[in-house]
């Protein structure tokens, strides 16, 4: 938890002006752009007029039959969009169409030509609707469509313009991935379609051929029928050539692009179907590719019976257009949906929160050596993926169509882009009337017209940015920062460049973004189904009325819900700080703090009463431990610390690597205790492998190696007695917490370190706050362990006969760090883990050795 939200609050604007660079200060890429607030402006008011409650993703199509239409939203919940007019917005986003990808007969070519175009990425704003969108256009190929193309677009719609702007790069890379899924699925489906069509045509040709011969025989060569048939045959022949050429084009999709799709392929390689695609795509010789496709498809699709194609095609409006799922392979389509869902999840929350978590991740990324100890697993291993992201987002620019914003916002933007692209006409779009459906058709042309002036396709923007390297963008970014005080809305070039150096967001499905205080602006608008009884309990609470900070305009019931929304209230005390920092002018820091703590206390009191139901163990095998689970566990932990005076000793055992066995008759009690303690276990593992929450069979010596925290059943059966026997036998390696008699048998601990970590008189009221507190302390401890591990002079002998002095130097070093003998054991244990991890890599596989100490244990009672 390096970048916990309070870091944001303490960032001072003055820091930017400093020419003197403090060596301790954060590198520039980790700094957070401040909220650009006017004096006393409520930062949460500006989004209030949006008609949707939270950000969502909209996928639309420009149908050749009915025009722009929304296809789906993510999340697929009507509540999300609220009264927001999807049809209207689809029209808006689709009208920013780009013309880059038409298929037609280019001059000098006899056959239609497919263009493999880049997707266009545009930012669009609609101040009237209070909606801002990142819009990602793409075209899919459809044999039956006009010009063989079907324009689609995916849009990330948010009420917060800055969020879109600042996260442009990330959004772009995420949507590019989704788009790649769609397009590669589509290429495959299109190729299949072409093959079928070709077969039909070949079949038709053979039939026609026979008929022509027949006509010739019957009526002579020059009869009308014969000529008609011959013409028809010639048409079919031509059609065959065209289709073959199309097939050739689609199968020789540039291999350069295929590299970008690498990650797509990786995930779908197992699907046998893709092999065809892969083969053909890999091949440079399209002829060979052609053959492989045909032969393979022959063997594969031998069941397909060719059909006769009528000379005249059906009328345009008669035929049913393919759905998106049909256009792409179903597998690819679902991959896309999954990807979009991940994207939606990862961009949830306020911009500040996203920043913080990005910085958090960036910092964590720098700590690969030690992050395995206490940080949640985030799959740093797949570095390749993140690289892929960078490649795939090959458009480093932010083409922007700012319909509502002032020109001022484009000020720094224009420093690197030709101003010609931005026409004053842009502003004319500011207030289109609240459009009814009938208006749409009328407006479409007009809107499209104006917007094409203002928007620019990705092609154009590539031209414009042709010579702009990331470094120059970076420089521009700093220019922008200096000018920042004048610019009320962050400029797009800033947002574009500021992330050049920041590692890309990992789209780990398991990574659920934590809900920190910063989400408040966003989450305030979520109307959750209220829990009736809790709401009643709390309604009369004066505190609720005094909590107007973010929700001044909201209705009181909503406030109550919000406060009760456990997960949303992440770190109340810090929140208080943030508010005062932001100069809300409503409450002083102390008052805010007290208020919120009081609120949190009341919630924690309530949750205490229901905690037995909620004490769900986070250990369900095969699912990764999430930060959320850990935060929830913070609550149990807090209660454990308050309840058990020997909590410090128990935590000491875990931190120093001594296996802690929690013994009890009742599974629920034991699991609760395990839950309270598990996040103290160093190197917990992604799935919490080092914790065994409930064991009812005798454990082996090897289990001590594997598990550092064990919940053990006390049973009267013979198995139970053998469990007790093994406990007795290995008593020197373990500490035993007896949940029935409330005793702990473990080595003594008399230090101050853990008393800070687990003070039973702690003022911390909330579980998640406590968890963050613990994380902070543990990070500190980890840093010390890192220092200890990698400090040269304390480990390397001065000369060969110098082993003794190494030991004494180590001891002295630890003493200098301020650790007692017992605390040194913690650092030493962590250090050993770091060493093993560093030497063996993250796998930690193989046969681990198990370290222990010969120390006397004592029995602690409550």
């Amino acid at each position, binding site marked *: 938890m390096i970048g916990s939200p309070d870091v944001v609050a303490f960032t001072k604007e003055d820091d930017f002006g400093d020419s003197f660079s403090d060596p301790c200060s954060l590198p520039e890429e980790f700094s957070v752009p401040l909220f650009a607030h006017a004096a006393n402006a409520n930062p949460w008011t500006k989004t209030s007029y949006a008609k949707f409650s939270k950000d969502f993703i909209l996928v639309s199509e420009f149908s050749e039959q009915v025009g722009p239409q929304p296809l789906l939203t993510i999340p697929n919940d009507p509540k999300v969009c609220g009264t927001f007019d999807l049809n209207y917005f689809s029209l808006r986003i689709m009208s920013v169409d780009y013309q880059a990808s038409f298929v037609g007969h280019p001059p000098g070519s006899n056959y239609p030509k497919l263009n493999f175009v880049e997707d266009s990425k545009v930012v669009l704003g609609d101040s009237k609707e209070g909606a801002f969108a990142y819009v990602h256009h793409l075209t899919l190929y459809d044999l039956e469509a006009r010009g063989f193309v079907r324009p689609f677009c995916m849009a990330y719609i948010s009420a917060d313009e800055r969020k879109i702007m600042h996260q442009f790069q990330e959004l772009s890379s995420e949507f590019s991935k989704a788009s790649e899924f769609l397009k590669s699925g589509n290429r495959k489906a299109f190729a299949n379609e072409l093959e079928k069509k070709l077969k039909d045509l070949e079949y038709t040709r053979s039939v026609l051929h026979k008929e022509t011969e027949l006509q010739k025989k019957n009526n002579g060569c020059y009869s009308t029928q014969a000529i008609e048939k011959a013409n028809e045959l010639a048409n079919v022949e031509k059609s065959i050539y065209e289709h073959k050429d199309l097939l050739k084009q689609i199968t020789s999709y540039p291999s350069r692009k295929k590299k970008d799709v690498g990650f797509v392929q990786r995930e779908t390689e197992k699907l046998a179907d893709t092999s065809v695609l892969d083969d053909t795509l890999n091949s440079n010789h399209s002829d060979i590719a052609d053959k492989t496709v045909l032969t393979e498809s022959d063997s594969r699709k031998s069941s397909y019976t060719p059909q006769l194609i009528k000379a005249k095609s059906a009328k345009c409006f008669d035929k049913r257009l393919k759905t998106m799922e049909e256009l792409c392979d179903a597998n690819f389509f679902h991959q896309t949906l999954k990807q979009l869902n991940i994207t939606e999840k990862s961009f949830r929350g306020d911009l500040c929160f996203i920043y913080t978590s990005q910085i958090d991740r960036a910092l964590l990324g720098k700590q690969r050596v030690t992050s395995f100890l206490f940080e949640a697993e985030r799959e740093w291993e797949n570095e390749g993926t993140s690289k892929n992201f960078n490649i795939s987002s090959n458009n480093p620019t932010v083409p922007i169509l700012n319909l509502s914003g002032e020109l001022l916002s484009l000020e720094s933007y224009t420093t690197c882009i030709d101003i010609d692209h931005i026409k004053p006409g842009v502003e004319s779009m500011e207030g289109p009337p609240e459009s009814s459906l009938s208006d749409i058709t009328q407006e479409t042309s007009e809107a499209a017209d104006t917007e094409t002036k203002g928007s620019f396709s990705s092609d154009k923007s590539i031209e414009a940015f042709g010579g702009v390297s990331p470094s120059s963008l970076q420089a521009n970014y700093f220019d922008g920062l200096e000018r920042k005080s004048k610019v009320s809305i962050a400029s797009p070039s800033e947002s574009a460049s500021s992330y050049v150096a920041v590692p890309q967001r990992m789209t780990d499905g398991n990574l659920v973004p934590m809900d920190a205080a910063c989400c408040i602006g966003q989450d305030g608008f979520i109307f959750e189904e209220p829990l009736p009884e809790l709401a009643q309990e709390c309604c009369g609470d004066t505190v609720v009325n005094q909590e107007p900070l973010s929700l001044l305009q909201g209705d009181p019931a909503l406030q109550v819900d919000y406060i009760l929304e456990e997960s949303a209230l992440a770190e109340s005390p810090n929140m208080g700080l943030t508010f005062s920092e932001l100069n809300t002018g409503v409450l002083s820091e102390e008052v805010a703090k007290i208020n919120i703590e009081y609120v949190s206390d009341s919630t924690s009191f309530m949750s205490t009463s229901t905690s037995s139901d909620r004490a769900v163990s986070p250990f369900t095998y095969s699912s990764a431990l999430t930060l959320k689970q850990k935060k929830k566990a913070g609550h149990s932990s807090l209660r454990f610390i308050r309840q058990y005076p020997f909590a410090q000793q128990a935590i000491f055992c875990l931190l120093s690597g001594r296996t802690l066995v929690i013994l009890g008759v009742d599974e629920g009690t034991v699991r609760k205790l395990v839950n309270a303690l598990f996040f103290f276990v160093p190197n917990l593992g992604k799935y919490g492998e080092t914790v065994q929450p409930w064991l009812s069979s005798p454990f082996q010596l090897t289990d001590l190696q594997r598990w550092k925290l064990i919940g053990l059943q006390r049973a009267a059966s013979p198995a139970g007695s053998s469990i007790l*026997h093994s406990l007795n036998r290995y008593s020197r390696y373990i500490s035993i917490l007896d949940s029935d008699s409330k005793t702990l048998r473990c080595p003594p601990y008399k230090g101050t370190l853990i008393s800070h970590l687990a003070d039973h008189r702690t003022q911390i009221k909330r579980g998640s706050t406590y968890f963050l507190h613990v994380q902070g302390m543990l990070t500190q401890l980890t840093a010390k362990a890192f220092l200890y*591990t990698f400090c040269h002079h304390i480990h390397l002998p001065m000369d060969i006969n110098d082993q003794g002095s190494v030991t004494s130097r180590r001891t002295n070093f630890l003493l200098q760090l301020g650790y007692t003998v017992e605390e040194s054991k913690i650092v030493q244990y962590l250090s050993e883990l770091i060493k093993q991890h560093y030497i063996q890599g993250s796998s930690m596989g193989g046969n681990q050795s198990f370290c222990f100490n010969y120390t006397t244990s004592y029995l602690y009672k409550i």
Partner: protein
Amino acid sequence: MLRWILGGREAQGTVEKSAALFIGEEQPKNCFTEMQVLKGHFDIVRFLVQIDDLRFASAGDDGLVLIWNVETGDCLIELRGHTQQITAMISYTFIRGGNAHTALITASSDRTLSLWDPDSGNRVQNISDLQSPVKCLLVLVCLDVWLSGGNELCVWNRDFELQCKTVHHSDAGISAMVELPKNFIAAAMDKEIVIFKLNLSGSDIAVMAMRHLADHQDTIHSLIHINDGLFASGSHIGELIIWDSVDWTIQAYEHILWEEPARDGQSEFKLNHQKQIERSIQHMSSDGEYIVAAIGSGLYVYNVLMKSVVAYRRIAHDSNVLHTVLQRLMSCSEDGSVRMWELQDLPLPAEPASSGFFGMFGTFGRSSKQTGPPAKKIPEVPGLRSLELIGDLIGHSGAVQMFLSFKEKGLVTCSTDHLLIIWKDGEFQSQLRSLAVFQKLEENQEL
């Protein structure tokens, strides 16, 4: 402890220890603070043989031979081939092409003898259909031959060709062999020690029995080489005989009766009966000057040169001691523990030892109370020292069959519970890891 877990509310200190000797959890002299459990066998592991500085082989009742790396704990190779339990295993070093090769010879109850290459895992040689299972093996480095002892004694050359063998002996067969000077071999057969001579005439080797030494009253369990001039044998009823290697005469005879003549009457008689069974000499080891013998559940240290007892502890373990080593005095037992001992001088040997005095002396924590009984029985022997427990290793859940020391690299134990454990010096390992970390840093140029 146990009672406490079972739900008793007494303080821990009041819980009685059933162990004969209990050292607390505080063991400052015990450097083995790291263990690595090696899994691989499916049955009792009985034999450990060191191959080189890094590798060792383990074998047991599952017929498997596993080669391990002592530093990493990795199982390097599995040698499969024997269908029944392995009865003897020895390493065999020979020179081939100027390089010393170490191979393994194993004998199994399936009446086969195999030669294994521990590098490749190949079964280089194999002899099956032996007339009787081989119980012991001996390599004579100077003659470059090796011997197998079962119901008969066979002499083999490096290429697994039978050179000669003796006639069929009694059903008991040869249980142990030691090499004596001048190509003589001493073999223990039930109550007798038989001296064989290997006659070399050209390339032919002949073996013949020279003498039968029938001085033991009971079955000989242990036969060891002490130094060039002496060897020792120990029997089931506690007879320890030191023999001259050259003329095979008795140099010393000790009949170890743990019990002094009855003093307390009734209760001692009872004990007598029990102890009769438990004074069998299971194992001995020697460094040329001292012998340590595992006698019943006790230990006995004997100075060969002085021909006197140095120290002993009648109840060193809860049950029979199976293996001992002298260099760093250790013993392992059927009770599943390995114990480390230290010879300590008695402060004033002239002063008659009182139990009160011993209660204060040289023990650790609570264990002092339990050291009473053996201390009482200190006989009036000048120079007698005490054998003090300095640490124990608990990990196995079955009898510890044998252990093998790799000096600072660690100690390997094998057990009835199918496991092997490498015990390591945690401090030393930590330093090794630090060195490895800095080495890797250097390699990755991250320094």
